C-alpha cells in the first residue's frame, strides 16, 4: 500500500501536466475558428491577444479550464438551488434517482445472492445468466424503459431508478455470492462442531465474512447506478438532471455547459463512492475487523 505522501507529488505533477495540455489543446483547437473570425472582421491582433481570444470564446470547441471552473462556480454557488440553471438542482435530481435505484439494486442483489448460495437448483440455472447478462449492453434499453413507462403514465423518478437498479444489482449479487462463500472449510467445520443450525451459520459466519465483499461491490454498483441515472435522462427530453443538461448542451452547442455538467457528474460520483467507502470502513471497524 502506497502512503499518502508517496502519492501526492506524482499525482499533482501529472494533474498539472494534464492542465497544461488542456490549455494548449484549447488554444490549438479554438484557433482555426478565431482566426477565421478575425479575418472576416479584419482585426489584426498580436499573438498574446490572439491566445487570450481563443481562451475566452462563447462556444469554444474545447473550453479552457478556467472557463469551466467559472461556469461551475457560478451555477453552483451564485444561483438559488431551486433555479433551473443551478447545477446543485440538476445534481440533486440525478442523485435522488441514483440513490433510490442503488438501494433497490443492493437489496435485490443481496436477496439473489442469498438464494443462490442456499438453493442448488437456483445456482445452476441462474448464475450463468447473471454472468452472461454482464456481457450485454444493458444501458441500450434505458431509453426504451423510460419511453415505454411514460406511455403508461409512469414518469418521474421511478423509471430512472429502475435503470439504476438494473445496473447496480449485478455487481452486488456476484460480489455477495463470493462473500457468502468466502468462509473457509475449517470455519464451517467449527460451526458444525458447535452444532450450529443453518440459520446460525448464516448469520454468525457467512454474513460477517461477506461484509468486505459487499462494500467492495457496492462501490462498483453505486458508480454504475449513477451512469444508469444519467443515461436514463438522455433520450427522453427529461427536463432536469445531469443527463438532460448534457443533452441540452449538445443541442445548443453550449460546450462550457457540457463540461460543467461533466464536472458536476464527477463530483457526485466521487461523493457517492467516498460515502460508500467510508461507511464500509466504519462498519468493518464496528464489527471488529483489523486493518490488513
Amino acid at each position, binding site marked *: 500500500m*502506497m502512503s499518502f505522501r*508517496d*502519492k501526492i*507529488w*506524482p*499525482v499533482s*505533477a*501529472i*494533474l498539472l501536466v494534464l492542465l497544461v495540455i488542456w490549455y494548449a489543446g484549447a488554444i490549438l*483547437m479554438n484557433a482555426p475558428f478565431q482566426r477565421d473570425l478575425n479575418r472576416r472582421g479584419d482585426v489584426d491582433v498580436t499573438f498574446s491577444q490572439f491566445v487570450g481570444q481563443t481562451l475566452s470564446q462563447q462556444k469554444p*470547441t*474545447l473550453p479552457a479550464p478556467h472557463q469551466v471552473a467559472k461556469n461551475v462556480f457560478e451555477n453552483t454557488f451564485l444561483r438559488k438551488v431551486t433555479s433551473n440553471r443551478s447545477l446543485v438542482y440538476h445534481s440533486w435530481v440525478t442523485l435522488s434517482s441514483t440513490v433510490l435505484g442503488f438501494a433497490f439494486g443492493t437489496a435485490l442483489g443481496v436477496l439473489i445472492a442469498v438464494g443462490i448460495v442456499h438453493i*442448488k*437448483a437456483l*445456482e*445452476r*440455472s*441462474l*448464475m*450463468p*445468466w447473471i454472468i*452472461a447478462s*454482464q*456481457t*450485454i*449492453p*444493458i*444501458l*441500450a*434499453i434505458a*431509453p*426504451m424503459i423510460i*419511453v*415505454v413507462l411514460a*406511455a*403508461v403514465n409512469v414518469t418521474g423518478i421511478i423509471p430512472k431508478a429502475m435503470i439504476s437498479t438494473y445496473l447496480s444489482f449485478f455487481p452486488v449479487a456476484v460480489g455477495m455470492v463470493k462473500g457468502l462463500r468466502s468462509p473457509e472449510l475449517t470455519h464451517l467445520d467449527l460451526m458444525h462442531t458447535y452444532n450450529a443450525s443453518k440459520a446460525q451459520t448464516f448469520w454468525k459466519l457467512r454474513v460477517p465474512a461477506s461484509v468486505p465483499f459487499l462494500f467492495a461491490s457496492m*462501490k462498483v454498483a453505486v*458508480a454504475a447506478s*449513477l*451512469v444508469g441515472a*444519467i*443515461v436514463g435522462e*438522455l*433520450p427522453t427530453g427529461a427536463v432536469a438532471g*445531469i443527463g438532460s443538461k*448534457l*443533452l441540452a*448542451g*449538445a443541442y445548443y*452547442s453550449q*460546450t462550457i455547459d*457540457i*463540461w460543467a*455538467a*461533466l464536472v458536476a*457528474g*464527477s463530483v457526485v*460520483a*466521487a461523493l457517492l*463512492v467516498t460515502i460508500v467507502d467510508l461507511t464500509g470502513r466504519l462498519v468493518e471497524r464496528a464489527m471488529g475487523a483489523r486493518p490488513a
Partner: protein
Amino acid sequence: MRMLRPSWQAVAALVCCLVAFALPGMSTLELEARANPAAVIDYPFMGTGGLVVGLLVLGALASMIRLSVWGEAVILLFAAHFAAWLLLTGIMGYEGSALAPFFLLIAAGWLLVWRLVVVLSGIRTTNRSLEWTLRLVIPAIFGAWLLIIWEAATRGFGIPFILLPPPSSIGVRIASSLPVLAADVRQTIFKSVLIGYVLGCGAGFAVAILADRVDFLRRGLLPIGNMVSALPIIGVAPIMVMWFGFDWHSKAAVVVIMTFFPMLVNTVTGLAASGAMERDLMRTYASSYWQTLFKLRLPAAAPFIFNALKINSTLALIGAIVAEFFGTPVVGMGFRISTEVGRMNIDMVWAEIAVAAIAGSVFYGVVALIERAATFWHPSVRGG
C-alpha cells in the same frame, strides 16, 4: 423400497392442474360459448384443454415413480414443454382472454421444470462431456422458461404491444429485418466498437508499460486511473460527437476513452503480480528489462490483462450505442433504438437489443476463449 417418491414441486403442480380443471373455463370466450350453446363462438383450447391437463398430471405423477434419474428427466422435459407449446399456440389469436386456469397450467409446467432442474442439478458425474452438457442444458432450460413465461404473460393478459411485445413477435421481426440489422451491426460493431476497442486497449497497454518503466508516472497515474474508473465517462459522448462529427469516428473516440483506463489500471496491477523470487531468478540469468518483461512479467500479468479486455468488451458496446444517441448518420444500433422508440416500434427496439445482447455475448465469449488458450497454465483455467 417404496414405489413413490413425491416431490413438493410435483404435488404443487398436481394441485394447480386440479384447480384448473375444477374451474369452469380457460378463457372468457369459452365461458361465453358455454353460456349460450346455440351461438357458434370459437374459443381457445377447444380440443386441447384436456390434453394439456392430462399431460401435466401424467408428467407430475410419473415423476414421482421411482424411475432412474434419466427416465424422470425425460418425462418431465417432454410433459412440461409439450404442454407449454400447446398452451402458447392455443392462446395465439385470442390475446387477453385467458383466465386463471391458463396461468395455473403454465405454473404447473413451470413447477415440473423446476423439479427437472433440481433432478439435473443433483446428477453427479465424472464424465466430462456429460458434465459440460449439463452445465449448458440447465441454464438453457431456465432461459427458455423465462421466454415462455414472458410469452404467456403478454399473450394471456393481453399486455399492450407497445408496453412489452411477446418474444415470438420479436423473433419474427428479427427474421424480417435482417438487412437493416446487419447494416446497423456493421456500422456500430465493426466500425465504432472494434476500432475503438483496439485503439483504447492498445493505448492503455502502452501507457501501462511506460508507467512501469517510470515509477513516478506509475505512482501518479494509478490513483488517477482508479478514480476515473468510478466517473461517468460516458458523458464525454456529446463532446466527442462535436469534435469528430456524426460518423463512426466520434463513437470510436468515446470507446477509446472508456476502455483506456480499465486497461491501464489492470495492466499496471498485473505487471506487479510476478513474485520477487521469480524476478530474482531472471536477474541471476542477467536478463534485460525487456527479456524479463516478455518472458516473466507479461505472462504473469495475462490474467489481469484479459480481465480488462473482458470488462472492456462490454464497456465498448455500451459506449458506442450511447454515443449514437447524440447524433449519427442514419444507421447504427443506438440510432435505430432511439428512433424506433420514438415511432413506438417497440418490437424493432427489442430486436435491436437482442442483436446487441448476442453481439456482446459473442464478443465476450471470443475474448474468454482466447484467454483460455493464452493462459492455459493458470490455476483458474486448469481447474486446480
